[in-house]
């Protein structure tokens, strides 16, 4: 987005945050503020109206904020800055009974994709984003994004150019599917091998809202503590399976992963399959829970016989 747009949105955001806090509508505003390094931002939690000017919005707000609503709601109503990904995360948590819509006040922001502060190029997670703008909000700050992401489809034309086709969205999945099985095995063995099980993927995920994750439970045969290929595979595959039919495709897991695992390829593999097999809805578009594995259809494809 242009500098002037970013500044205008930042001003609007600060003003709205100040007003909400001063009027007592919300107890805290969750947004972003500048970090130490050039272009770096970091999640910000503002509860004093005087501090609202710390908030910023622009091209480098890389964090998806939805999940913070859970931690903050105890203090009162939480205002959360939402773009497509954040708002879908909020919807997801509502669908999963973790949050009430009334517990949050959503500040909708237009988004044209966020950039990596280090390289200035569009974040991986934003390149395949299908929903840039908030799908739900209480107030919309600034116009919806008309043009596409600043990436490949940028500036192609005004209007509906923002649509990311399924082909683009599932490029990585399709690429891997085309590989020979041994190559796929080698690819994921290498990935699982380097996993350090820091669990940043699950901690950043708005679908991961269990009180105690299966990996933290000491159950015989469940998830072992050792770091080895088999255990890491168990963790990674189970993680995908637990969230696959609810994944909002925000890409935070992959962004958070310090080891660069292809987590979104795994997530999207399930998203793609559930979509093509069971006509699954994209998750988090509404507050309804339509998780494809939580229901069935008598006419589902039969391939097991």
């Amino acid at each position, binding site marked *: 987005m242009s500098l002037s747009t970013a500044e205008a949105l930042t001003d609007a955001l600060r003003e709205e945050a100040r007003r909400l806090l001063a009027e007592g509508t919300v107890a805290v505003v969750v947004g972003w503020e500048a970090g130490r390094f050039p272009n770096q931002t970091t999640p910000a939690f503002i509860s004093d109206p005087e501090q609202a000017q710390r908030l910023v919005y622009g091209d480098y707000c890389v964090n998806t904020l939805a999940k913070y609503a859970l931690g903050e709601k105890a203090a009162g109503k939480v205002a959360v800055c939402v773009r497509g990904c954040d708002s879908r995360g909020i919807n997801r948590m509502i669908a999963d009974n973790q949050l009430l819509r009334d517990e949050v006040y959503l500040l909708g922001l237009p988004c044209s994709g966020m950039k990596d502060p280090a390289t200035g190029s569009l974040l991986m997670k934003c390149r395949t984003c299908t929903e840039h703008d908030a799908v739900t909000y209480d107030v919309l700050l600034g116009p919806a994004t008309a043009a596409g992401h600043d990436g490949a489809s940028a500036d192609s034309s005004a209007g509906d150019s923002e649509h990311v086709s399924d082909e683009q969205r599932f490029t990585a999945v399709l690429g891997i599917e085309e590989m020979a099985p041994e190559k796929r095995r080698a690819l994921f*063995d290498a990935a699982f091998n380097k996993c350090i099980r820091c669990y940043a993927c699950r901690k950043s995920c708005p679908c991961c809202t269990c009180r105690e994750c299966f990996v933290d439970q000491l159950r015989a045969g469940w998830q072992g503590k050792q770091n*080895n*290929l088999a255990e890491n595979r168990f963790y990674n595959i189970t993680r995908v399976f637990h969230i696959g039919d609810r994944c909002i495709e925000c890409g935070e897991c992959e962004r958070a992963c310090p080891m660069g695992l292809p987590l979104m390829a*795994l997530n999207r593999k399930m998203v793609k399959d559930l979509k093509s097999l069971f006509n699954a809805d994209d998750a988090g578009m509404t507050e309804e829970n339509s998780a494809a594995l939580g229901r069935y259809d008598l006419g589902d494809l039969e391939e097991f016989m």
Partner: protein
Amino acid sequence: MPVNEAPTASAATAATAATAATAFEPTILAFCCHWCTYSGADLAGLNRMSYPANVRVLRVPCSGRVNPQFVLTALNKGCDGVLVCGCHPGDCHYVSGNYFARRRLMAFKRLLEFTGLEPERFQVRWISGSEAGKFRDTVIEVCDQIRALGPYRSGVSDDVSLNG
């Protein structure tokens, strides 16, 4: 000092020993629902059908009880193949268990294969209480397929050194 070698050696080990280590004999775990496939397997016995001894049936109330994590555990712990069997869709004793199982396991199987698992190592079949022959044929078929693939390498023993 290793313990309990002879009496507790698994069937696979024993079978391998029997054939003088000439052929690999897979260990195959079959989750069978109590109401259909398990009784189909009983019927195969009643009819004195014959099938390879590689398969071990683990009885569950319903194919809907089979958690995909069980499958991962089985492969990690040393099974070379896993079979999940239940009532045919529409015949579930619990109305809908196998419909949920069908969805879950279809997605799960694709996910496993995406990460490189050979399709033969994880299979799902619907076998009714009367289909003793189908149970036998399935066991023979799956056993042959996995024998041809060789042992499953889970990587459980590969200690991952981060640096190296």
